[in-house]
């Protein structure tokens, strides 16, 4: 009778899932572009201190990381809980930093060396003694651009 009755008997049509892969691929590409691969496995616990006057770090490929903190729980049996330095994938001594900077430099283009930055990712409970030692080594290695890694936040 009325024109609204027309579809009555057909029931619900199945929703097409043909575009589902497209949606998921879109998500996939989004994540592939916006994220970075995790490079190192951390052996030390690092919770960086909070700060407000922070800058974003540019050019991630030119940044070398130095992690400082006490070893994670499962490592504490063999390494103790005193703060330690981690370079790449292993614990290191302060004296190894110069060598580390040298290898980092070799991996980069010569033109890029002046722009290289060293990011110090240290736990907030670490004492300054170890950080001062690291800084002295960096000065000796002439890697003067540093960045104290921090979280955004107020006290």
């Amino acid at each position, binding site marked *: 009778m009325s024109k609204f009755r027309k579809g009555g008997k057909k029931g619900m049509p199945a929703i097409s*899932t*043909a575009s*589902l*892969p497209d949606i*998921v*691929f879109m*998500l*996939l590409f989004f*994540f*592939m572009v*916006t*994220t*970075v*691969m*995790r490079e190192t496995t951390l052996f030390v616990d690092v919770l*960086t*201190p*909070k*700060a*407000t*006057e*922070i*800058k*974003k*770090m540019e050019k*991630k490929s030119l*940044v070398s990381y130095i992690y400082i903190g006490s070893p994670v729980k499962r490592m504490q049996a063999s390494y103790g809980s005193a703060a330690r330095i981690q370079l790449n994938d292993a614990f290191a001594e302060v004296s190894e930093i110069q060598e580390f900077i040298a290898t980092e430099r070799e991996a980069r283009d010569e033109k890029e060396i002046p722009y290289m*930055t060293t*990011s110090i990712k*240290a*736990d*907030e*409970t*670490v*004492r*300054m*003694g170890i*950080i*001062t030692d690291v*800084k*002295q080594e*960096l*000065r*000796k290695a*002439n890697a*003067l*651009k*540093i*960045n*104290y*890694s*921090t*979280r*955004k936040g107020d*006290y």
Partner: protein
Amino acid sequence: MASSRRGLPEINAGSMADIAFLLLIFFLVTTTMDVDTGIARKLPPMPEEELQDEDPQIHAKNIYVVLINANNQLLVEGELMDISQLRDGAKEFIDNNGRDANSSENPEKAIISLQNDRGTEYMTYIRVQNELAAAYNELRNKAALNKFGERYANLNETQKKEIRNMYPQKISEAEPKNIGGDS
């Protein structure tokens, strides 16, 4: 249109979504999204052997001495101070312009000298660095608003440089030594 008579059968694309989901989850797990932020600083080059005892002459009144001891206490210009007051203290010192005879002559000559103990906690050190940076940033912002009517961050490069020259950020860190208190 569809496969004429016998032609190729259509490939079932139903599992495509599953494959894509699998990849998606793999990337979600293996990657990180955190943007690295931090306080950028430049270390002074190692002093040359011969020049070691040749200190440049700077008037004592142009130096704002900040000491942090092993108990995370601050001694600023010879007086105990709480970190929360450091920002205002530093701003007052930098922007003194000769008003107080015992404070800095002008912002260009003002130097902040920071010295910490080996036992100082990293968190306190960063907080002090942060407060000092904040003092400079606030002064620069004020100058930028006065001069160009814009916040410092919104200025162009030459304007920024001008403001930077008005308030050069001079934070000097002394050669490390133990200043009391065992770590």
